[in-house]
Protein backbone atom coordinates (compact mmCIF):
# COMPACT_ATOMS: atom_id res chain seq x y z
CA UNK A 1 0.00 0.00 0.00
CA UNK A 2 1.47 3.40 -0.93
CA UNK A 3 1.85 6.24 1.53
CA UNK A 4 -0.95 8.18 -0.15
CA UNK A 5 -3.23 5.30 0.85
CA UNK A 6 -1.65 4.62 4.23
CA UNK A 7 -1.94 8.26 5.27
CA UNK A 8 -5.70 7.86 5.44
CA UNK A 9 -5.18 5.67 8.53
CA UNK A 10 -3.21 8.32 10.41
CA UNK A 11 -5.22 10.13 13.08
CA UNK A 12 -5.72 13.89 13.24
CA UNK A 13 -3.96 14.76 16.48
CA UNK A 14 -4.19 18.55 16.48
CA UNK A 15 -1.79 20.69 18.51
CA UNK A 16 0.58 19.17 21.02
CA UNK A 17 3.77 19.57 23.02
CA UNK A 18 7.17 17.93 22.81
CA UNK A 19 9.19 16.45 25.64
CA UNK A 20 12.27 14.38 26.32
CA UNK A 21 13.61 12.73 29.45
CA UNK A 22 13.30 15.14 32.41
CA UNK A 23 12.23 18.12 30.27
CA UNK A 24 9.22 18.94 32.44
CA UNK A 25 11.26 18.79 35.66
CA UNK A 26 13.05 22.17 35.41
CA UNK A 27 11.96 24.94 37.78
CA UNK A 28 10.55 26.93 34.82
CA UNK A 29 9.24 23.98 32.85
CA UNK A 30 5.79 23.63 31.41
CA UNK A 31 3.28 21.78 33.57
CA UNK A 32 1.82 19.59 30.86
CA UNK A 33 -1.09 18.38 32.99
CA UNK A 34 -1.99 21.95 33.91
CA UNK A 35 -1.86 22.93 30.24
CA UNK A 36 -4.12 20.04 29.34
CA UNK A 37 -6.58 21.02 32.03
CA UNK A 38 -6.63 24.76 31.30
CA UNK A 39 -6.15 24.66 27.52
CA UNK A 40 -6.85 21.13 26.26
CA UNK A 41 -6.77 22.33 22.66
CA UNK A 42 -3.00 22.94 23.03
CA UNK A 43 -2.17 19.60 24.61
CA UNK A 44 -3.95 17.10 22.40
CA UNK A 45 -0.89 14.89 22.30
CA UNK A 46 2.63 14.56 23.62
CA UNK A 47 5.57 14.06 21.31
CA UNK A 48 7.94 11.93 23.36
CA UNK A 49 11.62 12.21 22.54
CA UNK A 50 13.25 8.88 23.38
CA UNK A 51 16.88 7.95 23.81
CA UNK A 52 16.62 4.28 24.68
CA UNK A 53 19.43 4.38 27.23
CA UNK A 54 17.40 6.93 29.24
CA UNK A 55 13.95 5.45 28.71
CA UNK A 56 10.67 7.18 29.58
CA UNK A 57 10.42 9.60 32.50
CA UNK A 58 7.70 9.83 35.13
CA UNK A 59 5.85 12.64 33.36
CA UNK A 60 5.58 10.63 30.18
CA UNK A 61 4.48 7.58 32.14
CA UNK A 62 1.78 9.66 33.83
CA UNK A 63 0.64 11.03 30.48
CA UNK A 64 0.31 7.54 29.05
CA UNK A 65 -1.47 6.23 32.12
CA UNK A 66 -3.91 9.11 31.74
CA UNK A 67 -4.71 7.89 28.24
CA UNK A 68 -2.96 10.74 26.45
CA UNK A 69 -2.11 10.40 22.77
CA UNK A 70 1.53 10.33 21.75
CA UNK A 71 3.98 10.38 18.91
CA UNK A 72 7.40 8.72 19.25
CA UNK A 73 10.37 10.96 18.42
CA UNK A 74 13.61 8.97 18.22
CA UNK A 75 16.79 10.62 19.47
CA UNK A 76 19.41 7.95 18.89
CA UNK A 77 19.42 6.46 15.41
CA UNK A 78 21.45 7.33 12.34
CA UNK A 79 18.87 6.33 9.75
CA UNK A 80 21.42 6.08 6.97
CA UNK A 81 23.54 3.52 8.81
CA UNK A 82 22.37 -0.12 8.53
CA UNK A 83 24.67 -1.02 11.44
CA UNK A 84 22.51 1.11 13.71
CA UNK A 85 19.54 -1.22 13.42
CA UNK A 86 20.92 -3.86 15.75
CA UNK A 87 18.42 -6.30 17.24
CA UNK A 88 18.94 -5.05 20.77
CA UNK A 89 18.05 -1.45 19.81
CA UNK A 90 15.13 -2.57 17.68
CA UNK A 91 13.79 -4.68 20.53
CA UNK A 92 13.98 -1.66 22.85
CA UNK A 93 12.21 0.49 20.28
CA UNK A 94 9.44 -2.08 19.88
CA UNK A 95 8.94 -2.31 23.63
CA UNK A 96 8.86 1.47 23.97
CA UNK A 97 6.35 1.68 21.13
CA UNK A 98 4.21 -0.90 22.92
CA UNK A 99 4.16 1.36 25.98
CA UNK A 100 3.65 4.65 24.17
CA UNK A 101 1.15 3.39 21.56
CA UNK A 102 2.19 6.30 19.36
CA UNK A 103 0.35 7.46 16.27
CA UNK A 104 3.69 7.28 14.40
CA UNK A 105 7.43 7.60 14.79
CA UNK A 106 9.38 10.64 13.71
CA UNK A 107 12.67 12.36 14.30
CA UNK A 108 15.48 14.43 12.92
CA UNK A 109 16.96 12.59 9.96
CA UNK A 110 20.53 13.44 10.76
CA UNK A 111 23.51 12.15 12.65
CA UNK A 112 22.63 11.37 16.25
CA UNK A 113 25.87 9.77 17.33
CA UNK A 114 29.50 9.34 16.30
CA UNK A 115 30.55 5.80 15.47
CA UNK A 116 28.63 3.03 17.25
CA UNK A 117 25.83 4.18 19.58
CA UNK A 118 27.44 4.66 23.00
CA UNK A 119 27.74 7.06 25.87
CA UNK A 120 29.76 10.13 24.95
CA UNK A 121 29.06 9.88 21.26
CA UNK A 122 25.66 11.60 21.12
CA UNK A 123 25.10 14.82 19.16
CA UNK A 124 22.91 16.02 16.30
CA UNK A 125 24.19 17.08 12.91
CA UNK A 126 22.24 17.53 9.68
CA UNK A 127 22.77 15.15 6.76
CA UNK A 128 25.02 15.96 3.83
CA UNK A 129 22.45 17.09 1.28
CA UNK A 130 23.90 15.24 -1.68
CA UNK A 131 22.29 12.87 -4.20
CA UNK A 132 24.29 9.88 -2.94
CA UNK A 133 23.00 10.40 0.61
CA UNK A 134 19.35 10.00 -0.44
CA UNK A 135 19.09 6.22 -0.82
CA UNK A 136 20.79 5.22 2.45
CA UNK A 137 18.48 7.55 4.36
CA UNK A 138 15.39 6.30 2.49
CA UNK A 139 16.38 2.68 3.10
CA UNK A 140 16.76 3.36 6.82
CA UNK A 141 13.30 4.90 7.00
CA UNK A 142 11.76 1.93 5.20
CA UNK A 143 13.65 -0.52 7.43
CA UNK A 144 12.50 1.16 10.63
CA UNK A 145 8.91 1.28 9.37
CA UNK A 146 8.99 -2.43 8.59
CA UNK A 147 10.75 -3.41 11.82
CA UNK A 148 8.46 -1.44 14.15
CA UNK A 149 5.23 -1.42 12.16
CA UNK A 150 4.72 2.33 12.44
CA UNK A 151 4.96 5.15 9.94
CA UNK A 152 8.35 6.88 10.21
CA UNK A 153 8.40 10.57 9.34
CA UNK A 154 11.84 12.12 8.80
CA UNK A 155 12.33 15.66 10.10
CA UNK A 156 14.70 18.33 8.76
CA UNK A 157 17.36 18.79 11.49
CA UNK A 158 18.92 22.03 12.69
CA UNK A 159 22.57 22.86 12.14
CA UNK A 160 25.20 25.51 11.80
CA UNK A 161 26.79 24.05 8.68
CA UNK A 162 24.96 22.38 5.83
CA UNK A 163 27.05 20.74 3.11
CA UNK A 164 26.06 19.14 -0.17
CA UNK A 165 24.92 20.25 -3.59
CA UNK A 166 21.17 20.01 -2.94
CA UNK A 167 18.89 22.47 -1.19
CA UNK A 168 17.71 20.90 2.08
CA UNK A 169 14.12 20.71 0.84
CA UNK A 170 15.17 19.15 -2.46
CA UNK A 171 17.15 16.55 -0.52
CA UNK A 172 14.21 15.63 1.69
CA UNK A 173 11.77 15.65 -1.23
CA UNK A 174 13.92 12.94 -2.79
CA UNK A 175 14.20 11.03 0.49
CA UNK A 176 10.47 10.89 1.18
CA UNK A 177 9.73 10.01 -2.43
CA UNK A 178 12.18 7.10 -2.37
CA UNK A 179 11.10 5.96 1.11
CA UNK A 180 7.42 6.42 0.20
CA UNK A 181 6.67 8.25 3.40
CA UNK A 182 5.47 11.54 4.84
CA UNK A 183 7.44 14.41 6.33
CA UNK A 184 7.81 16.29 9.55
CA UNK A 185 8.59 19.89 8.64
CA UNK A 186 10.32 21.78 11.41
CA UNK A 187 9.66 25.40 10.52
CA UNK A 188 12.25 26.72 12.98
CA UNK A 189 14.95 24.42 11.61
CA UNK A 190 14.08 25.44 8.07
CA UNK A 191 14.29 29.12 9.04
CA UNK A 192 17.79 28.46 10.43
CA UNK A 193 18.83 26.77 7.21
CA UNK A 194 17.47 29.49 4.92
CA UNK A 195 19.11 32.21 6.98
CA UNK A 196 22.48 30.43 6.92
CA UNK A 197 22.25 30.09 3.17
CA UNK A 198 21.14 33.71 2.72
CA UNK A 199 17.80 32.62 1.26
CA UNK A 200 14.26 33.87 1.82
CA UNK A 201 12.38 31.82 4.44
CA UNK A 202 10.09 30.10 1.96
CA UNK A 203 12.66 29.39 -0.76
CA UNK A 204 12.13 25.92 -2.20
CA UNK A 205 8.76 25.31 -0.61
CA UNK A 206 6.98 25.87 -3.94
CA UNK A 207 8.75 22.77 -5.29
CA UNK A 208 8.32 20.66 -2.16
CA UNK A 209 5.49 18.09 -1.94
CA UNK A 210 3.65 19.83 0.89
CA UNK A 211 0.87 17.26 0.65
CA UNK A 212 3.39 14.90 2.30
CA UNK A 213 3.75 17.12 5.37
CA UNK A 214 2.03 15.19 8.14
CA UNK A 215 3.46 17.04 11.09
CA UNK A 216 4.84 20.51 11.74
CA UNK A 217 7.12 21.80 14.47
CA UNK A 218 7.22 25.40 15.63
CA UNK A 219 9.81 26.58 18.14
CA UNK A 220 11.57 29.65 19.36
CA UNK A 221 15.17 30.53 18.68
CA UNK A 222 17.63 33.24 19.37
CA UNK A 223 20.40 34.92 17.46
CA UNK A 224 23.90 34.27 18.75
CA UNK A 225 27.29 35.20 17.44
CA UNK A 226 30.77 33.75 17.42
CA UNK A 227 33.60 36.12 16.52
CA UNK A 228 31.12 38.39 14.74
CA UNK A 229 29.36 35.61 12.82
CA UNK A 230 25.71 35.60 13.75
CA UNK A 231 23.78 32.34 13.71
CA UNK A 232 20.45 31.10 14.95
CA UNK A 233 20.20 28.65 17.80
CA UNK A 234 17.06 26.55 18.08
CA UNK A 235 16.34 26.88 21.80
CA UNK A 236 12.69 25.83 22.22
CA UNK A 237 11.70 29.10 23.89
CA UNK A 238 8.39 30.78 23.02
CA UNK A 239 10.33 33.47 21.08
CA UNK A 240 9.44 32.28 17.61
CA UNK A 241 11.34 34.08 14.85
CA UNK A 242 9.30 36.01 12.25
CA UNK A 243 10.85 33.78 9.57
CA UNK A 244 9.47 30.69 11.31
CA UNK A 245 5.98 32.17 11.38
CA UNK A 246 6.33 33.09 7.70
CA UNK A 247 7.14 29.47 6.86
CA UNK A 248 4.21 28.19 8.93
CA UNK A 249 1.84 30.63 7.26
CA UNK A 250 3.01 29.55 3.81
CA UNK A 251 2.79 25.85 4.55
CA UNK A 252 -0.47 25.76 6.54
CA UNK A 253 -2.94 26.16 3.70
CA UNK A 254 -0.95 23.88 1.40
CA UNK A 255 -0.30 20.96 3.78
CA UNK A 256 -3.45 19.13 2.83
CA UNK A 257 -2.66 15.99 4.84
CA UNK A 258 -1.45 17.72 8.02
CA UNK A 259 -2.27 15.69 11.13
CA UNK A 260 -0.32 17.27 13.96
CA UNK A 261 1.59 20.36 15.04
CA UNK A 262 3.98 20.59 17.96
CA UNK A 263 4.88 23.80 19.74
CA UNK A 264 8.30 22.93 21.17
CA UNK A 265 8.18 24.90 24.39
CA UNK A 266 8.51 22.22 27.07
CA UNK A 267 10.97 24.07 29.28
CA UNK A 268 8.95 27.28 29.61
CA UNK A 269 6.18 28.40 32.01
CA UNK A 270 2.70 27.96 30.60
CA UNK A 271 1.78 31.67 30.61
CA UNK A 272 4.74 32.50 28.35
CA UNK A 273 3.67 29.90 25.78
CA UNK A 274 0.01 30.74 25.35
CA UNK A 275 0.34 33.45 22.72
CA UNK A 276 2.44 31.08 20.61
CA UNK A 277 -0.13 28.32 20.93
CA UNK A 278 -2.89 30.78 20.02
CA UNK A 279 -1.10 31.96 16.92
CA UNK A 280 -0.48 28.38 15.80
CA UNK A 281 -4.14 27.56 16.41
CA UNK A 282 -5.27 30.55 14.40
CA UNK A 283 -2.90 29.78 11.53
CA UNK A 284 -4.02 26.16 11.42
CA UNK A 285 -7.71 26.75 12.07
CA UNK A 286 -8.72 25.13 8.81
CA UNK A 287 -6.90 21.94 9.83
CA UNK A 288 -7.59 21.60 13.52
CA UNK A 289 -10.58 23.87 14.03
CA UNK A 290 -12.85 20.88 14.27
CA UNK A 291 -10.78 18.89 16.79
CA UNK A 292 -12.33 19.03 20.24
Amino acid at each position, binding site marked *: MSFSQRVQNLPHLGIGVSTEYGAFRGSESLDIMALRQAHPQFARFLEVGVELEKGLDEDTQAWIEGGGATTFHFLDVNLDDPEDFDESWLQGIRETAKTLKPAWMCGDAGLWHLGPRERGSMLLLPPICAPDAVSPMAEGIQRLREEVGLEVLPENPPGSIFL*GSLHLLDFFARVIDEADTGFLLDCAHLAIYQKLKGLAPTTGLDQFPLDKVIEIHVAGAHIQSVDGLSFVEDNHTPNVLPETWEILEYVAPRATELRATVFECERNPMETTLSGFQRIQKTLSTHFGGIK
Partner: protein
Amino acid sequence: MSAQALQRMLIRVMFDPSLLEALRSEPEQVMGMESLSTHELTDLLSQDPRAFRTDSHRSSRHLQALLEEYPVSVHHFTQGNPGRLLSFFSSARFHDAIQQWTSIRKAFERYLVEQAPPEFEPLISLEGAIATSRHSSQNEDPLSPGHWRLGPSKGLVQTPSGLCAKYSELLLPMKETHILEALKSPPGSALNLSGKKDSWALIEKNEAGELEMGEIPESLAQILLEIEHKEVPHRELVDIIISLGADHREEAEEVLQSLRGEGLLVGNDGLGI
Protein backbone atom coordinates in the same frame (compact mmCIF):
# COMPACT_ATOMS: atom_id res chain seq x y z
CA MET B 1 29.88 6.72 -0.36
CA SER B 2 31.19 10.22 -0.86
CA ALA B 3 28.59 12.05 1.25
CA GLN B 4 29.64 9.83 4.12
CA ALA B 5 33.30 10.74 3.62
CA LEU B 6 32.38 14.43 3.60
CA GLN B 7 30.36 14.07 6.78
CA ARG B 8 33.24 12.38 8.58
CA MET B 9 35.65 15.10 7.49
CA LEU B 10 33.16 17.74 8.65
CA ILE B 11 32.94 16.11 12.08
CA ARG B 12 36.71 16.02 12.41
CA VAL B 13 36.92 19.72 11.53
CA MET B 14 34.16 20.58 14.01
CA PHE B 15 36.07 18.91 16.84
CA ASP B 16 39.49 19.95 15.61
CA PRO B 17 39.33 23.22 13.64
CA SER B 18 43.11 23.08 13.13
CA LEU B 19 42.40 20.44 10.51
CA LEU B 20 41.04 23.18 8.26
CA GLU B 21 44.51 24.63 7.82
CA ALA B 22 45.91 21.23 6.89
CA LEU B 23 43.09 20.75 4.37
CA ARG B 24 43.94 24.10 2.82
CA SER B 25 47.69 23.76 2.72
CA GLU B 26 48.40 20.04 2.32
CA PRO B 27 45.14 18.22 1.64
CA GLU B 28 46.90 15.17 0.24
CA GLN B 29 48.50 14.64 3.66
CA VAL B 30 45.16 14.47 5.49
CA MET B 31 43.82 11.01 6.30
CA GLY B 32 40.54 10.34 4.48
CA MET B 33 41.13 12.92 1.75
CA GLU B 34 41.27 10.20 -0.88
CA SER B 35 37.52 9.66 -0.44
CA LEU B 36 36.62 13.31 -1.04
CA SER B 37 36.07 14.85 -4.45
CA THR B 38 37.55 18.24 -5.30
CA HIS B 39 34.05 19.65 -5.30
CA GLU B 40 33.38 18.32 -1.78
CA LEU B 41 36.64 19.68 -0.46
CA THR B 42 35.77 23.07 -1.97
CA ASP B 43 32.33 22.88 -0.36
CA LEU B 44 33.91 22.26 3.04
CA LEU B 45 36.60 24.91 2.71
CA SER B 46 34.18 27.54 1.43
CA GLN B 47 32.32 27.56 4.76
CA ASP B 48 32.95 30.47 7.10
CA PRO B 49 35.53 29.02 9.55
CA ARG B 50 33.65 30.60 12.43
CA ALA B 51 30.68 28.36 11.64
CA PHE B 52 32.71 25.36 12.83
CA ARG B 53 32.97 26.99 16.26
CA THR B 54 29.32 27.80 16.95
CA ASP B 55 29.14 25.19 19.71
CA SER B 56 32.03 26.07 21.99
CA HIS B 57 31.13 23.33 24.48
CA ARG B 58 30.91 20.45 22.02
CA SER B 59 34.26 18.89 22.89
CA SER B 60 33.83 19.48 26.63
CA ARG B 61 30.45 17.73 26.64
CA HIS B 62 31.83 14.71 24.85
CA LEU B 63 34.90 14.65 27.08
CA GLN B 64 32.76 14.72 30.24
CA ALA B 65 30.92 11.60 29.16
CA LEU B 66 34.22 9.88 28.41
CA LEU B 67 35.77 10.91 31.73
CA GLU B 68 32.91 9.27 33.58
CA GLU B 69 33.86 5.96 31.99
CA TYR B 70 37.48 6.13 33.25
CA PRO B 71 37.14 8.03 36.53
CA VAL B 72 39.92 6.51 38.61
CA SER B 73 42.45 6.40 35.77
CA VAL B 74 41.75 10.01 34.82
CA HIS B 75 41.75 11.18 38.44
CA HIS B 76 45.18 9.80 39.15
CA PHE B 77 46.65 10.57 35.74
CA THR B 78 45.50 14.19 35.39
CA GLN B 79 45.83 15.08 39.08
CA GLY B 80 42.87 17.47 39.11
CA ASN B 81 43.21 18.76 35.56
CA PRO B 82 41.03 16.51 33.38
CA GLY B 83 40.64 19.35 30.86
CA ARG B 84 44.07 18.50 29.51
CA LEU B 85 42.45 15.47 27.89
CA LEU B 86 40.60 17.76 25.49
CA SER B 87 43.70 17.13 23.41
CA PHE B 88 42.09 13.78 22.56
CA PHE B 89 39.91 15.50 19.99
CA SER B 90 42.92 16.59 17.97
CA SER B 91 44.71 13.25 18.34
CA ALA B 92 45.25 10.64 15.65
CA ARG B 93 43.18 8.24 17.77
CA PHE B 94 40.08 10.46 17.54
CA HIS B 95 40.52 11.23 13.85
CA ASP B 96 41.03 7.58 13.06
CA ALA B 97 37.94 6.55 15.03
CA ILE B 98 35.77 9.03 13.13
CA GLN B 99 37.28 8.06 9.82
CA GLN B 100 36.80 4.33 10.50
CA TRP B 101 33.49 4.94 12.35
CA THR B 102 34.61 2.91 15.34
CA SER B 103 34.02 3.41 19.06
CA ILE B 104 34.98 6.85 20.37
CA ARG B 105 35.21 5.44 23.88
CA LYS B 106 37.65 2.76 22.86
CA ALA B 107 39.70 5.33 20.95
CA PHE B 108 39.78 7.43 24.12
CA GLU B 109 40.89 4.38 26.09
CA ARG B 110 43.78 3.79 23.70
CA TYR B 111 44.66 7.47 23.87
CA LEU B 112 44.72 7.32 27.67
CA VAL B 113 46.97 4.27 27.60
CA GLU B 114 49.38 6.12 25.31
CA GLN B 115 49.38 9.30 27.37
CA ALA B 116 49.56 7.84 30.87
CA PRO B 117 52.61 6.15 32.41
CA PRO B 118 52.79 2.42 31.57
CA GLU B 119 51.74 1.32 35.05
CA PHE B 120 48.29 2.82 34.42
CA GLU B 121 47.50 0.34 31.65
CA PRO B 122 45.87 -2.40 33.81
CA LEU B 123 43.67 0.18 35.54
CA ILE B 124 42.61 1.74 32.25
CA SER B 125 41.85 -1.71 30.81
CA LEU B 126 39.80 -2.59 33.89
CA GLU B 127 37.73 0.59 33.55
CA GLY B 128 37.34 -0.13 29.84
CA ALA B 129 36.02 -3.63 30.59
CA ILE B 130 33.65 -2.18 33.19
CA ALA B 131 32.33 0.34 30.65
CA THR B 132 31.79 -2.43 28.13
CA SER B 133 29.78 -4.49 30.62
CA ARG B 134 27.83 -1.44 31.84
CA HIS B 135 26.59 -0.61 28.37
CA SER B 136 26.24 -4.09 26.99
CA SER B 137 22.77 -5.34 26.29
CA GLN B 138 21.25 -8.75 26.06
CA ASN B 139 22.54 -10.54 22.98
CA GLU B 140 19.31 -11.23 21.13
CA ASP B 141 20.95 -13.23 18.37
CA PRO B 142 19.67 -16.81 18.46
CA LEU B 143 22.26 -19.33 19.60
CA SER B 144 22.90 -22.19 17.19
CA PRO B 145 21.72 -25.60 18.43
CA GLY B 146 24.41 -27.39 20.41
CA HIS B 147 26.44 -24.23 20.96
CA TRP B 148 27.52 -22.12 23.93
CA ARG B 149 28.56 -18.54 24.48
CA LEU B 150 29.39 -16.17 27.34
CA GLY B 151 26.36 -14.95 29.29
CA PRO B 152 25.09 -11.41 28.64
CA SER B 153 26.79 -8.34 30.15
CA LYS B 154 29.90 -10.22 31.24
CA GLY B 155 33.43 -8.99 30.78
CA LEU B 156 36.84 -10.51 31.39
CA VAL B 157 40.06 -8.63 31.90
CA GLN B 158 43.52 -9.60 33.04
CA THR B 159 44.72 -7.54 35.98
CA PRO B 160 47.38 -7.50 38.68
CA SER B 161 46.15 -9.38 41.71
CA GLY B 162 44.22 -7.16 44.12
CA LEU B 163 43.41 -4.43 41.60
CA CYS B 164 39.64 -5.04 41.69
CA ALA B 165 39.46 -4.46 45.43
CA LYS B 166 41.72 -1.44 45.23
CA TYR B 167 39.70 0.00 42.38
CA SER B 168 36.48 -0.23 44.36
CA GLU B 169 38.14 1.55 47.27
CA LEU B 170 39.33 4.39 45.06
CA LEU B 171 36.04 4.79 43.23
CA LEU B 172 33.76 4.92 46.25
CA PRO B 173 34.72 8.42 47.51
CA MET B 174 34.60 9.76 43.95
CA LYS B 175 31.04 8.52 43.53
CA GLU B 176 30.05 10.08 46.84
CA THR B 177 31.32 13.47 45.67
CA HIS B 178 30.08 13.04 42.10
CA ILE B 179 32.68 11.93 39.64
CA LEU B 180 33.05 15.11 37.59
CA GLU B 181 33.42 17.17 40.77
CA ALA B 182 35.95 14.75 42.22
CA LEU B 183 38.07 14.94 39.08
CA LYS B 184 38.67 18.66 39.66
CA SER B 185 40.88 17.98 42.70
CA PRO B 186 44.01 15.85 42.90
CA PRO B 187 43.43 12.46 44.52
CA GLY B 188 44.19 12.25 48.21
CA SER B 189 46.50 9.28 47.94
CA ALA B 190 49.04 7.88 45.53
CA LEU B 191 47.96 5.03 43.29
CA ASN B 192 51.00 2.77 43.71
CA LEU B 193 50.17 0.60 40.76
CA SER B 194 52.57 -2.18 40.23
CA GLY B 195 52.77 -5.86 39.58
CA LYS B 196 52.27 -8.01 36.56
CA LYS B 197 48.89 -9.09 35.28
CA ASP B 198 48.64 -12.36 37.13
CA SER B 199 44.94 -12.48 37.82
CA TRP B 200 41.63 -12.44 35.97
CA ALA B 201 38.69 -10.20 36.83
CA LEU B 202 35.12 -11.05 35.89
CA ILE B 203 32.72 -8.12 35.55
CA GLU B 204 29.01 -8.81 35.56
CA LYS B 205 25.86 -6.74 35.40
CA ASN B 206 23.34 -8.23 37.80
CA GLU B 207 19.59 -8.35 37.29
CA ALA B 208 19.21 -4.95 38.96
CA GLY B 209 21.61 -3.52 36.40
CA GLU B 210 24.38 -3.03 38.97
CA LEU B 211 27.94 -4.01 38.19
CA GLU B 212 29.76 -6.58 40.26
CA MET B 213 33.34 -7.64 39.81
CA GLY B 214 35.83 -9.98 41.36
CA GLU B 215 38.83 -12.12 40.65
CA ILE B 216 38.25 -15.60 39.28
CA PRO B 217 40.48 -18.70 39.04
CA GLU B 218 42.70 -19.04 35.98
CA SER B 219 40.94 -22.25 34.87
CA LEU B 220 37.52 -20.57 34.85
CA ALA B 221 38.95 -17.58 33.00
CA GLN B 222 40.34 -19.92 30.33
CA ILE B 223 36.91 -21.48 29.79
CA LEU B 224 35.20 -18.10 29.57
CA LEU B 225 37.85 -16.72 27.25
CA GLU B 226 37.13 -19.50 24.77
CA ILE B 227 33.53 -18.33 24.41
CA GLU B 228 33.96 -14.61 25.05
CA HIS B 229 33.52 -13.49 21.47
CA LYS B 230 32.12 -16.51 19.69
CA GLU B 231 29.78 -19.47 19.86
CA VAL B 232 31.49 -22.75 20.60
CA PRO B 233 30.06 -26.24 19.85
CA HIS B 234 29.19 -28.27 22.92
CA ARG B 235 31.68 -31.05 22.23
CA GLU B 236 34.53 -28.60 21.68
CA LEU B 237 33.78 -26.83 24.94
CA VAL B 238 33.68 -30.13 26.84
CA ASP B 239 37.10 -30.98 25.37
CA ILE B 240 38.42 -27.59 26.47
CA ILE B 241 37.19 -28.17 30.01
CA ILE B 242 38.86 -31.60 30.07
CA SER B 243 42.10 -30.06 28.82
CA LEU B 244 41.89 -27.58 31.66
CA GLY B 245 41.72 -30.29 34.31
CA ALA B 246 38.36 -32.10 34.38
CA ASP B 247 38.94 -35.78 34.96
CA HIS B 248 36.36 -37.07 32.50
CA ARG B 249 33.47 -36.00 30.27
CA GLU B 250 30.86 -36.39 33.01
CA GLU B 251 32.76 -33.97 35.21
CA ALA B 252 33.16 -31.54 32.32
CA GLU B 253 29.40 -31.74 31.69
CA GLU B 254 28.77 -31.00 35.36
CA VAL B 255 31.06 -27.96 35.18
CA LEU B 256 29.19 -26.71 32.13
CA GLN B 257 25.79 -27.06 33.78
CA SER B 258 27.09 -25.41 36.90
CA LEU B 259 28.40 -22.42 34.94
CA ARG B 260 25.10 -22.21 33.11
CA GLY B 261 23.29 -22.22 36.45
CA GLU B 262 25.38 -19.27 37.57
CA GLY B 263 24.53 -17.43 34.39
CA LEU B 264 28.12 -17.32 33.21
CA LEU B 265 27.34 -19.29 30.07
CA VAL B 266 24.29 -19.66 27.91
CA GLY B 267 23.79 -22.75 25.89
CA ASN B 268 21.42 -24.16 23.33
CA ASP B 269 21.36 -27.88 23.86
CA GLY B 270 19.22 -28.40 20.79
CA LEU B 271 15.98 -28.60 22.75
CA GLY B 272 15.09 -24.99 22.12
CA ILE B 273 16.80 -23.60 25.21
